[in-house]
């Protein structure tokens, strides 16, 4: 999929409040070595109890404004990737649209996807903007899991953090453009991660097994289709579900440490925001011409994008 739409700038918001995991681990019978070497999260970012998903998105937008000028009249799409909307009706993108003061000629919709949400969102929003023929887009991600995680559940309590991001999608500016994508959902795997209306349930064994089986294959497929090898890719942004899964995938694919960032030690696994938080660093550095990003989780679904820098 070559649309010409570029990932130009990313604004981010990570709440300042941090909850240290080391204090909670003993009560959950989690050993310090397991916390450090396998979960890989020392502290988690937690939003204020009064903040909603649209509020976090608005703060990410304020961060974007510190990095660039945004002409809202040129914005023809506001899309929010979330499974934690402000409410069922209306869609959170419409609420964000109102808070930003965006114009009438602007589509709004949410994408319900989890840890693969950004990869889906970039591909969908890029194709959507291409079909419009004019205008730019704002792609938000926000999944504040602090609302749905049971603090007594040792399988999930020390992993997730809150954050939001917004990606400015431009048809004129330099940035990363999607060259190819690979998506999928494992049949009969919905119960590996679900919210029963009260809290999040995760079957860590199933999540690991599905990721270990599907993600390397997805990345190999996309590289093969584009006649690329690992050496041709500058960074692999693998969803940092935990240090253990990233280490496993890096090993399975035979990737160098320097090409696979982790970096969530001080805020946690931020679900749909995890990949754009890493990609923002790549945009700032301006030194990675080709990047593969792969998200995986709820569904069990995965999504892999190959993006390349275009001037």
């Amino acid at each position, binding site marked *: 999929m070559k649309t010409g739409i570029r990932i130009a700038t990313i604004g981010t918001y990570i709440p300042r409040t941090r909850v240290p995991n080391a204090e909670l681990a003993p009560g959950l019978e989690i*050993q310090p070595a397991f916390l450090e070497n*396998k979960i890989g999260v020392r502290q988690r970012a937690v939003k204020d109890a009064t903040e909603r998903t649209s509020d976090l998105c608005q703060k990410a937008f304020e961060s974007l404004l510190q990095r660039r000028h945004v002409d809202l009249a040129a914005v023809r799409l506001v899309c929010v990737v979330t499974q934690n909307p402000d409410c069922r009706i209306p869609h959170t993108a419409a609420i964000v649209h109102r808070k930003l003061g965006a114009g009438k000629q602007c589509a709004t919709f949410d994408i319900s996807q989890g840890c693969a949400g950004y990869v889906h969102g970039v591909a969908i929003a890029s194709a959507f903007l291409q079909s419009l023929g004019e205008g730019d887009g704002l792609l938000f991600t926000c999944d504040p899991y602090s609302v749905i995680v049971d603090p007594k559940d040792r*399988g999930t309590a020390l992993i997730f953090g809150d954050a939001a991001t917004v990606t400015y999608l431009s048809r004129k500016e330099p940035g990363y453009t999607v060259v190819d994508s690979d998506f999928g959902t494992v049949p009969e795997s919905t119960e590996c991660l679900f919210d029963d209306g009260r809290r999040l349930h995760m079957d860590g*064994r*199933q999540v*690991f*097994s599905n990721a270990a*089986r599907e993600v390397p294959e997805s990345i190999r497929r996309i590289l093969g289709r584009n006649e690329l090898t690992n050496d041709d890719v500058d960074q692999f942004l693998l969803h940092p579900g*935990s240090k253990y899964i990233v280490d*496993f995938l890096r090993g399975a694919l035979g990737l160098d440490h320097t090409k696979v960032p982790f970096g969530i030690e001080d805020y946690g696994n931020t679900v749909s925001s995890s990949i754009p938080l890493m990609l923002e660093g790549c945009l700032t550095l301006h030194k990675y011409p080709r990047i593969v990003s792969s998200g995986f989780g709820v569904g069990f679904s995965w999504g892999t994008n190959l993006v390349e820098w275009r001037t």
Partner: protein
Amino acid sequence: MITRDNIVELFGAAEIHVSMADLKDGEPLAMQGLDSLDMANLLFQIEQKFGLTISPNDASRLRTVQDMVDYVGSKRH
């Protein structure tokens, strides 16, 4: 015929570092130093090696090396 060695050799693939000399086939691996992610990886290696898909119910019952030998043996008949 699935043997104990067929299972134990997968510990290396899963990067599980335990003393093979001290490994007790009938004792839960969780009691012998394996954590939940070690177990997840070991069961994944079994799935890959023997072409199986282990259901959540079955996974919860596979706690010892002997459980795994018996399980894989039963699935291959």
